[in-house]
Each structure stands twice: as structure tokens, then as C-alpha cells.
């Protein structure tokens, strides 16, 4: 659902050692993408989760990522508390 912002690409390679840094890299290359993924307080939108190498992250944008990590933004099935 974001590929119209990335010129049709469904996979992109960016740098970053946390999800937040990855989002910053995405935003620098494709402006507007962060606002689709983050709320006004810089947290992942409550209906989204981030999966890193196939596992749903428990730290949201604070989660560390490896240099070869695969990151997907997926539907959050259950929310939890407010952060």
C-alpha cells in the first residue's frame, strides 16, 4: 500500500540500526512515507506492527535491526497499552 510513494517498488534497501533510523532513511528518499506509518508522536500507528526477520517487534521504532534484516510493516492484530 506504500508502493505509490516508492515509485512502484515493493522492496527497498535503506540504512539504519534501529527501526526509527530506517524510517528516517525512508523519509529522506521518499518524503511522506513516515506520515503513513507513524502517528503525531513519532510512534508506529496503533493499527501497525513492525516485523523484523519474520518476528513481530515488541519495541516498535526502538527495535534494533541488523545490517541484513528484513523489515515489514504489517497489521497489528492486538494493540496493548499506550506507550
Amino acid at each position, binding site marked *: *500500500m506504500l508502493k505509490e510513494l516508492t515509485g512502484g517498488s515493493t522492496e527497498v534497501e535503506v540504512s539504519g540500526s534501529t527501526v526509527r533510523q530506517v524510517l528516517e532513511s525512508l523519509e529522506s528518499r521518499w518524503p511522506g512515507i513516515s506520515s503513513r506509518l507513524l502517528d503525531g508522536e513519532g510512534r508506529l*500507528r496503533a493499527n501497525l506492527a513492525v516485523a523484523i526477520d519474520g*518476528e*513481530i517487534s*515488541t519495541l516498535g521504532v526502538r527495535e534494533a535491526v541488523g545490517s541484513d534484516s528484513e523489515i*515489514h510493516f504489517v497489521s*497489528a*492484530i*492486538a494493540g*496493548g497499552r499506550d506507550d
Partner: protein
Amino acid sequence: MNASGYEPNMVLANKEYNVVGTRPVRHDGVDKVTGRALYGADIQLAGLLQGAVLRSPHAHARIKSVDVSAAAKANGVMAVVTATNFGPSGDKIVDVGEGPTPLAYVRGNVLAKDKVLYRGHPVAAVAAASLHLAQEALKLIKVDYEPLPATLTAPDAMRQDAPVLHDDLRTQELGEATDRGGNLAAHFRHEKGDVEKGFSDADVIVESELDTSTVHQGYIEPQTATALWNNDGRVQVWCSTQGAFPTRDTTSKVLGVPVSQVKVTPMEIGGGFGGKIPVYLEPVAALLSKKSGRPVKIVMSRQDVFEATGPTPGSHIKVKIGAKNDGTLVAAKADLAFEAGAYPGAMVAPAAMCVFAAYDIDNVVIDGYDVVVNKPSTAAYRAPGATNAAFATETVVDELAGKLGMDPIDLRLKNAAKEGTRRADGPKFRRIGCVEVLEAMQNHPHYEAPLEGPNRGRGVAIGFWFNVGLESSASISVNSDGTVNLVEGSTDIGGTRTSIAMQAAEVLGLKAEQVQPTVADTDSVGYTDVTGGSRTTFCTGYAAHNAAHDVLRQMKERAALLWETEPDKVTFEDGTFASDNGKRRSIGFRRLASKLGETGGPIVGRATVKPRGVGGSFAGNIVDVEVDPETGKTTILRFTAFQDAGKAIHPSYVEGQMQGGSVQGIGWALNEEYFMSPEGEMKNSTLLDYRMPTALDLPMIDTCIIEVANPGHPFGVRGVGEANIVPPPAAVANAIHAAAGVRMKRLPMSPPSVMEAIWAK
């Protein structure tokens, strides 16, 4: 094993432990079978008042005015409340566990303000000295309604001329907010590969359009809540809930009080299945208590449960799958339009995650639609959305197998998802047991057993649920007699207090009965999420495991003190601490526990977890049916349920989950539905007419537990509460096709429906 050598309940175990994998008597068993266990309706408090709720007779209407003056003066009435008692909601957005939602929507479902959106929608409530006095007072409340036309299905509600439920609802279209009004709350899409090319490469294509009806979780115990709004401002709640903490948090948001001012005590619970996650009565009872100065209890009737809690969505689904002649699935497309009920939030996102999850298909597109309709606001029902989706996918796969001349399990095995298979929503599967479940089905005696006689057929299906982790807390205190008390916060719906205790026992080298579990209130244990999402044995068990290791760490320090050595020189194995620092010493857990007072005082181990390594579970069914060609009645002759549990902590409770989910799935398949009038009234809101299967309707459900360890859990646990309800309707539909030669496209496949299909053939 019975006399013929057949094992009705198999466990294909992967690893043996001392406690994990055994079948101890459950800790709550005596209280449950003697009637001493306290459920929500059992609570008795000094000065308790009884509450009753006035509900809308209309499926859709504006509320022009509500006059409670006569009711407030009625005999024995101590308080009357309406939505005005909440105060203004404004534009505030809250998260009550299912994503951001306007506070006005959350409050609106508890007590309607400007509109009623389903028959049964609460409008006002009364607290009085007795239930009868409260019910009589309800009749004195005058509500001036302006009835409006109702819309009851997703396709109808999505039409341009459909009555609009929420004037302020705007469609989220592929992740972007739009200005478009109407009843479509959201449309999303998952895409992988090139589905048009995939279909053009296919040798065989099957597509199907199906409908499923609204069904209810069918828990035997109705919702109940008792609240005391104390003079110090603290609100205490006793209720039947799947999650004391989420109930606390939602109640605090609805009431507009700090979360620290609300304490929730979960009573024993008579079933939930997802339907007791939302909050209905707690804020109402609290408001009545605040106004009356007394505790107030409200218990729903069965009719209230059907008409005003959260059934699972009805749905309209299209599935199209293409295959090569060798059986390789090359393309798949699904359109899932789900009824959300009165407020947005249908479980269509999880349906989209599960619809093709069992298969490795390169080219996939899935569209999901969340549509509001004039029915009660839907809630989760045991793998929400996945059963609807599997009914579509698995019947199409069955039809493909027929066209290709392939064995239905061989076709599934050829395309089975494995570790590394990419899901349609993006991530790759970690270690999963889809292949192992299919192989267990194919190798089971049921699959090759002769099925003789007319009008009989066998069907298979497979399903998936991804499970969740969320947050749990646990603490363990050591008693001087060598037993431990375990305090945790997960409401016990299916035997989890024992499965959690067993994991602690395994770590501590104790027997299960030497760990005494308690499910605590929200003041007495750390935050713990819902008992739902098949997470409890996985996540709260993980917390208990870690808390037990914390106990061992501290016990080692005490042993080291006794032996004048360092803690890292102390080992623990088979219930015994030992050290070999020049001189061999050892002491058992029980004896060391007796010395805590002289070595530094009590030991309490604690842990909180929010684990990442959640493992999804695959489930499969083989079912034999007989279809009466004169009545259309389908009789289940034999049913075998298969499921990957990762590690069955207590196999009897895993088998219970598999059997329970199968029975619910069979009811969903053959009989259960909300029979709605055109005006939006449920005509069968009793358990006599909403016909769920009983033990008289079904044979014993045989089980086969497969154990493909989840690497994300210390014992390999995968949650098992939900995946077992996913395949039954599809398996039964496939068996009906084998028996009667008809492809059913609607749930339930009740006798009239099957008869019509047979006559039309």
C-alpha cells in the same frame, strides 16, 4: 488405546520432560466440580443493588430525547444513568486494544447517545433494590426514537444508496485517509508477485463466491459486572472478563478516571472465546454505583448476550486460485468483505493474514473491506476471521484437487508453506508445522478407513492462526515447606493456571501440585494482557518460567552463603543444589527453603515478558459425514482433529481445546446463524433456537497433537486455543460434497440449505 489398538488421542511428542507433557489434576478442579468456584454472578456485597439496562427496539434510529424522570422516582430505584453521565467525548481518540478508536464510539457502544445502531443497543440503565424493581423502572423510561432504515450485510451497506450509520465515518483507502463517507471504514490490500501473470500461466482455475452468517461465541456464562465507586474515588470492579488489565484500562478511559483509580478483580469465567474482551457492563455498573453510593451488579440475559455483545462478522468472500496440471498453485486472489457491526473494526485484517497462509504461492493479491452494518458491534471469536477465510480457500482447494485428479492432502503437501515461505503480507515464516500436520493427517488411520454406505463422504481441510505474544507478569514466593506460590494475571479459561504452574514446576524441579497458582486482581500482579490470541500458556508461561529461574538464582545465593562459596559455584539439577568447591555438598530445594529465614529472609522471584518468538499453529481435520437426501440433515460420523502445539504442556487441556474448537466449528458449519428480520431483529436469540451442538449431536472428537517446537519459547510452546476452529466448516463442506455432490457456498450448511442445493443439482 482401545481394544482394537486405535489411539483416539495421540501425542506425537518431540521431547520428554519431568512435568511438562504430563497430565496432573488441575489446581482449580475441586472448586469447579463442587460449585465452590466463584463466578461473576456469585459476588455478594453489603448493600448490593441490582442493575438493569434499557435497550433499543430499533436496529437504526435517532434518539430525539430520553426522559428518565418517572423511572428515577419509582419504588426502590436508587439511580438512573444515560450517556449524558459520561461527559463530553469530543474528538478524543483512545486505544482499547484494537487500534485507535474515537472515544465517542467506545462510549457509544456502552450507552448510546445520539443514535442507536442495532437492536439491543443500550440506552439507559437503572439500579434498584431488586432486579424486578429495576426492570419495572425501565418501563417508565420514555425514549423518543426516529426510526431509520437499516442495512444488514456488507454488500448492501457498501452500496451508494445504503443508509449511513455514522455521518463522521471516512473511508481509509489503502492506508490513506479520504473524504469519502459511507459505511466502508477501511479498504486494504496485500500483494505479492504478479497475480494476473500467475492466472494467465494457470492450467486450471477455480473461483468461488461465498457467504458466512453472523455467529456468536456461545459462552455458557453471560457477561456480568459488579462495581463499587467508593467514597475515596476508587472504582472496584468484579467481572467475567478475559483480561482484568484491559478491562481496567478501557473502563478508566470510558469513565474518564485515571487508571490507578480502577481495580478489576477477574472472577472465574464460564467461557469467552474472544467475546469477553470488550467492555459492556463495567462502566454502566460503575456510573450507577457513583450515583447511588452503593455497589451495583448487572447480569446479562441470554437475549442481551446475543443482541448486544460482540458476535463474529458475517462475511462475503470471493476466492480464486489457479494451478498447473502438476498441482503447483500459481496464483491466488481473495476479496474479503466483513461486517463490523455498528462500529468499525471487523476482524478482516487477521482473515487476510490467514486466508492463503497454508500455501506457498508466488502470486497473491488480497483485498479486505471493513464495513459497518446495523448489527451488534463485532468482537473476536477464536481465530477471528480465519474460519470465514478458510471456508472459502479450503473448499476451492478441494475443488482444484478434484479437477486435477489429485489426492486432496497430496495437493496441499505439494504447496505447503514451510520455514522461509513468504506470507502475502510480507514477512517470511519462521519454523512452522504445516507439513507435519498434513503428514500426520495422511498417516492417520482415519484417512484410509473404509467409509461405506450411501450418502456418505469424507472431507479434509487445514487452517492457520498466527497467535500473539503481548505482555505478561508473574511472581513466585517460596514457602518454608518447599512449595511455592505463583501469582499471575491471566484469567483461566481453559486450564492455563495449571499449564503455567507446570512450567514453573519444571524449572524448579517440583511437582505441579507443589506450585500453587493464583489469578490475581490488577492491584496484585504486574500488567498482563488478555487471555486470548492463544498467548496465555506461551507468554504467561514464559513469565512463570523466568520467575522460576529468578527464584533459582536467589536460592543459589543462599546455598552459597551456607557453604561459604560463590553463587556461580552452585549448580541446580533434578531438584538439588550442589557445589564441589573442594568438598562435595548438596541440599534439596525443600530443605533449602526451610533455611530462608536464617539466610536472609523470604525469596520472591519475578519476571515480566513481552516475547518476540511467537509461533503460529496449523490445524487440520478429517471428517466423515452422512447427508440425508430427504431432509438435508448432515450427521457427523467421525471427526479427527490435528494440531501443532509446539509442546503440549498439559496434553489433556490441549486435547480439550482441539475438541472444543472443533465442536464450535461444526456448529458454525451446520447450524449456527443470526436469523435476522429485514428490520434487523434477531429472531432466534435463545439457545433453543440458536442451535449449538451438544454432546448428543456429535461423536467423540479424536485428536492428534503434533509437536514442532517453537524456537521462540523455552519449552517450544505454540498457542493452541484458536487454530482448531479454523478448518471445520471447510472440512465439513468438503465432506458434504463427497457425500451429496453439492458445493455449499454459504454457512451454515443447515438442512434447508443442503436440500435446496441437492434439488438444484
